[in-house]
């Protein structure tokens, strides 16, 4: 009894420690963003230009204040624009990925063609290659089409990303061929099989891809830096005003607001996402 009790406590403590390491930074952002300026400077003014002393660990603010949020939301128009840019770009990318990726993944999973494997292998190289390498050919095409400095420079190349296809293919492979055979015998068209059997059975994969893509493109940094010289279309992931003693609080409030959409989505869909990741690694 006592032994298992100790074991349980040990488990709880290690889980708590894990939670602090994994989620701690978020809580720190929230706490600091609710602080008054002088208190904020007291606890970590040290790391800002011309601060003094060492940074401290703020556990709870003495005075809760929404002053930082008020300032951000009432005075910083730029923040709204960038937030909206992010929403628009991420939505466009995900929609496009679905339209392009679902049929492609279905074909990879269910068609028999010898060139298919070769193509899939190339897709995997694109999937792994770092953005900075693919950016060179992408830049050339975007330039030719005159899309540099428009939001489509971010959306279009991402629509053809191959990671969603890789994940979806693994889900579609799990759809048993017997069902498709039976449907064919009953006279169902290929289009009917794909839309009425394939897509519903691959729902889990589609959900996982939507979530993973959103987390990925809400966090995009490389593409806008390379393709958008004009800052008016920059996404909120690049919202980093120069942090000084004056605006540290506002920057922290912005940091917290930026992570709200992804965190909410995560809590709503972490089981779908988890199942999606798990399936990527399973036999297919």
């Amino acid at each position, binding site marked *: 009894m006592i032994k298992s009790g100790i074991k349980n406590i040990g488990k709880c403590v290690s889980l708590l420690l*894990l*939670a602090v390491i*994994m*989620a701690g*930074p978020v809580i*720190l952002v929230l706490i*600091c963003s609710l602080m008054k300026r002088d208190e904020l400077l007291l606890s*970590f003014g*040290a*790391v800002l230009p011309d601060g003094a002393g*060492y*940074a401290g660990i703020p556990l709870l603010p003495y005075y809760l204040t929404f002053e930082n949020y008020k300032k951000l939301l009432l005075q910083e128009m730029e923040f709204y624009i960038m937030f909206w840019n992010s929403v628009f770009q991420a939505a466009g990318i995900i929609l496009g990925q679905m339209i392009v*990726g679902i*049929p*492609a993944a279905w*074909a990879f999973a269910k068609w028999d063609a010898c060139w298919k494997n070769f*193509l899939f*292998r*190339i897709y995997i*190289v694109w999937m*792994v*290659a*770092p*953005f*900075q*390498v693919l*950016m*060179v*050919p*992408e830049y*050339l*095409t975007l330039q030719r089409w005159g899309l540099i400095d428009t939001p489509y420079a971010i959306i279009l190349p991402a629509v*053809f990303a191959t990671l969603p*296809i890789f994940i979806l293919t693994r889900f579609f492979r799990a759809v048993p061929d017997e069902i498709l055979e039976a449907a064919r015998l009953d006279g169902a068209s290929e289009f009917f099989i794909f839309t009425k059997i394939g897509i519903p059975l691959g729902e889990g994969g589609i959900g996982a891809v939507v979530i993973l893509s959103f*987390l990925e493109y809400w*966090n995009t940094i490389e593409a806008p*830096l*390379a393709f958008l010289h004009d800052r008016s279309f920059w996404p*909120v*992931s*690049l*919202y980093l005003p120069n*942090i000084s003693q004056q605006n540290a609080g506002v*920057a922290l409030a912005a*940091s*917290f607001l*930026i992570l709200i959409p*992804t*965190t909410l*989505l*995560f809590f709503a869909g*972490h089981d779908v996402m*988890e199942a999606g*990741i*798990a*399936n*990527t*690694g*399973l036999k*297919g």
Partner: protein
Amino acid sequence: MLLPSMAGAAAFHVIPMCYVLKRSVTDDSTGKLVGLDHYREVIDNAAFRLAVQNTVRFLGLCVPLLFALSLIGALLLSKEKRNLGKTVALMPMAIPAASMVLIWKVLFRRYGLLDRLFCGFTGGIDYISSEGAFGVLISTYIWRNVGYDIVLWAAALSSVDQSIDEAAQIDGAGKLQRFVWVTLPHILPYGSVILLLSLLNAFKAFREVYLMAGEYPNQSIYLLQHIFNNWLLNFRFSDLCAGAVLVISVVGILSVLLHKLLERDLC
């Protein structure tokens, strides 16, 4: 059904890639063939060498480390009934790099929290603009990706046939023996897909580096991505093209090898 995807691939990757290849062997202004001159230039470039060295060091260290750590994590968490642990470990994936930059500064800058903790031994280090940056880069990568890999390993673990494990137990095999001879041979084939996805995520660690340290960070974390960005900003297209061809060949060989392993083991 593959058509839309292939059209996009052709427009954004295949056709311009041919142009990139051509550009990498011709002179910028005259358009004459110069053979492998650009490649020689790129390989002789000190910054490129530094970037390659750092990237290889980073990948060589962080990918195996993540591989092992996440396996241990998955083993520890696999006994839990509820998978709260896994969910918690996945959380960093949902935290945008932009939100974390300030906190990273508080943690790792000079006079920051880590500095305060260790100042007795080291006496004031800025972990972001010193050699320590490499450590920050690795820990950030592990922090962000450990949950993803734990979930992958846990899926592999859950597919182990329990009856074989029980049979071994009845035959008197100990915990360690059972792990080495029953569990490990079963889950190792899943390793190739985990390596592939870890590699892909390793290239994304650049985001944090960029936001923390900007275009010219400490030498120890000057990665390939930095040099490509800087080439693009300075319009050095021939270097960019030659470099891209080199890197994509290496990445291509690596990922095709991994995918071959994966197909042999899992399909």
